């Protein structure tokens, strides 16, 4: 590789992405790529806490749902502009992160993961049952963040800055002291404490932007598809997807979740079209294959360095 500026692949990637609405006229394809972008955001946001800090959260959908519902309910019940609702969602997600984090981060390993599932499920059940406030299981239509016409393009262009922002954050974390401290926590929390890292504080600091970006993605997603419901924006499937996208792509890397989202979202759609009834089996098989043959994630195909295996090494320890 010649000595081109190091940022040229990134610039090219974003340039191509930005240009897509201009030459892709098929709304369906544009919508599909929109989903890839949104879930790349979700994956990258998760990656901050899950990949870099090694905290396997399986409850991130809580923030996704908070973003979606805050935007929808504030517009519907208080009459706010939906963009204000989006900001409200981000704030509430941060608050939620502080609460959930302070409870769950006391636990390690699989206990932590399970506790995050519990937290997200509590939120889902409450939303589902407080139907007076939230429309319960029936759900409701979400407001539009942009005006017609050309909604597909506007939403697409709206999602890219979000991707850019979380991308920039990931890049910064990857090479900063903060990232270094997060990785230290991931490798061994006790040792990290011994060298002066405060795990409780760092983990919460990692969770805050993670939650905020997830909420923003949730708002945008709900608005585009015009719908919020507990089984759409608060389901555990999304939590699992967030983790999968990052892990499949390559945890604790900047490009990993983007790759993961491309692979997962597109294969899911392709399987559905060509394999119909078997897509669940194929999906499961894909997971198994990746775990056994590509534990460093898809990105390890491109990097090929053994170093990556150490990057995604043992995470947490099971405390008895």
């Amino acid at each position, binding site marked *: 590789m010649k000595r081109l500026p190091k940022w040229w692949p990134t610039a090219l990637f974003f340039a191509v992405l930005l240009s897509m609405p201009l030459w892709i006229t098929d*709304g*369906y394809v544009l919508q599909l790529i929109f989903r890839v972008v949104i879930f790349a955001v979700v994956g990258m946001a998760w990656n901050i806490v899950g990949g870099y800090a090694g905290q396997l959260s399986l409850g991130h959908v809580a923030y996704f749902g908070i973003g979606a519902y805050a935007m929808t309910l504030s517009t519907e019940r208080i009459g706010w502009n939906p963009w204000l609702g989006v900001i409200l969602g981000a704030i509430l997600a941060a608050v939620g992160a502080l609460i959930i984090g302070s409870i769950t981060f006391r636990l390690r390993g699989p206990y932590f993961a399970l506790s995050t599932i519990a937290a997200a499920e509590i939120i889902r059940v409450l939303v589902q*049952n407080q139907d007076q406030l939230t429309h319960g299981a029936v*759900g*409701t239509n979400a407001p539009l963040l942009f005006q017609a016409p050309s909604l597909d393009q506007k939403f697409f262009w709206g999602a890219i800055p979000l991707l850019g922002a979380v991308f920039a954050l990931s890049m910064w974390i990857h090479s900063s002291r903060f990232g270094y401290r997060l990785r230290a926590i991931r490798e061994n929390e006790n040792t990290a404490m011994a060298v002066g890292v405060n795990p409780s504080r760092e983990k919460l600091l990692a969770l805050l932007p993670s939650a905020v970006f997830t909420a923003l993605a949730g708002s945008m997603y709900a608005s585009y598809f015009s719908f919020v419901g507990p089984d759409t924006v608060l389901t555990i499937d999304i939590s699992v997807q967030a983790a999968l996208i990052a892990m499949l792509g390559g945890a604790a890397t900047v490009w990993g979740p983007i790759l993961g989202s491309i692979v997962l979202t597109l294969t899911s759609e392709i399987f559905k079209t060509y394999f119909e009834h078997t*897509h669940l089996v194929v999906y499961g098989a894909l997971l198994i294959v990746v775990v056994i043959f590509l534990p460093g994630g898809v990105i390890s195909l491109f990097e090929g360095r053994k170093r990556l295996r150490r990057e995604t090494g043992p995470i947490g320890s099971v405390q008895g």
Partner: protein
Amino acid sequence: MRRFVLALAVVALAGCQQSKPGRIGVITALTGSQQAFGQAHDRGYEIALEEINAAGGVLGKPLEIVKYDDQSKADIAAQGVAKLVDQDKVSALIGSYSSESTKAIVPLVARRGVPLLMPTATADNVLDNTQGWSFRLCSGATDYANSMVSFWRDAGMPKSVAIVYENTNFGQANGAAMKKAATDAHIPIATEESYTAKSPSYTAMLEKVKEKNPDAIYFASYLLDATSLMHQSRQVDLNPRYFTAAGTGFSTPEFPTADKGAGKDAEYTFSVTQWMPESKWPGSAEFAKKFQAKYGSVPAYHAVQAYTALKVMAEAVKKAGKWDATAIRDALKAIDLPETTFGPVKFDARGQNLHPVLVTQVQKGQYQIVHPKTEATADPILPTPKWSGR
């Protein structure tokens, strides 16, 4: 890699240039938790398609439908609209199965200017924000509740009603509808109980209901819970004057059977239903027979709703005279079909078809229509005998 991209380009270009023959898009739950109902839809569509094409197709050509599987998820259903309209260039849509998935696609079809006919969604809020592009064939939760109240007016108003519903979109929509209908009719509500569907045991909840001594109970449940609820009602010895329900579980062909339903415990239960093979609408018995011959089971009303929806849509296209989405939408607005297999079809200003709801009772293991009197096949057996006396 290059060859692949080239091939893709060729296919894309080819797709754009060719003028596609007119097609109707169908979204339903072919996989996922609602697969059983999506399958009922699918089968109804297949039978309708056969009949339409055997009778000469639509506008001189055989009718084609394009299916999309929403995997029982609302956001995937939303994606289906994009695929069917943008890629497959359908001129009209039918779908989906659940109220959630249907609600998700309503604003999207309005955005794209394509008419949508909803075969099965019963939640009342699916007709909000249609902007005139969506129509609903089936009756909604409010119609269910009103029909049951109207039956009670004939058979004897209960002194109180307990509303027991699952906490899903189907259950909550019907629970709320009955609450309103009962309140409007001045029937005191003994209690409202919402349960988590598919649990092993409802005895604690049923004990609570029993304590309130309701004169009538209105359930909103699917088949499995309907079975559990009736077995466990017997277990706790709950004896209201009326066991009633908002259709679905309590009106499926399997419910009164012993091996797939509640068997003897289903006896005497009342339920609203959208359709029965025995109903007097033309073609009902034939449809049921055809379905049974082809698929080996008795059709539930979801299948006939899909069947009728496709036929209605085909008629609308014929009326419009061309495969133009706006023209088809206008044709649907004005359509008036008094004699379909699903009863008369005519949409009001909101897009709702004024479909008469039937009330049935399980008598000797068979459903009998007991209301309205004009459609009735038998008289209701009242009061419901106590469990100890059965």
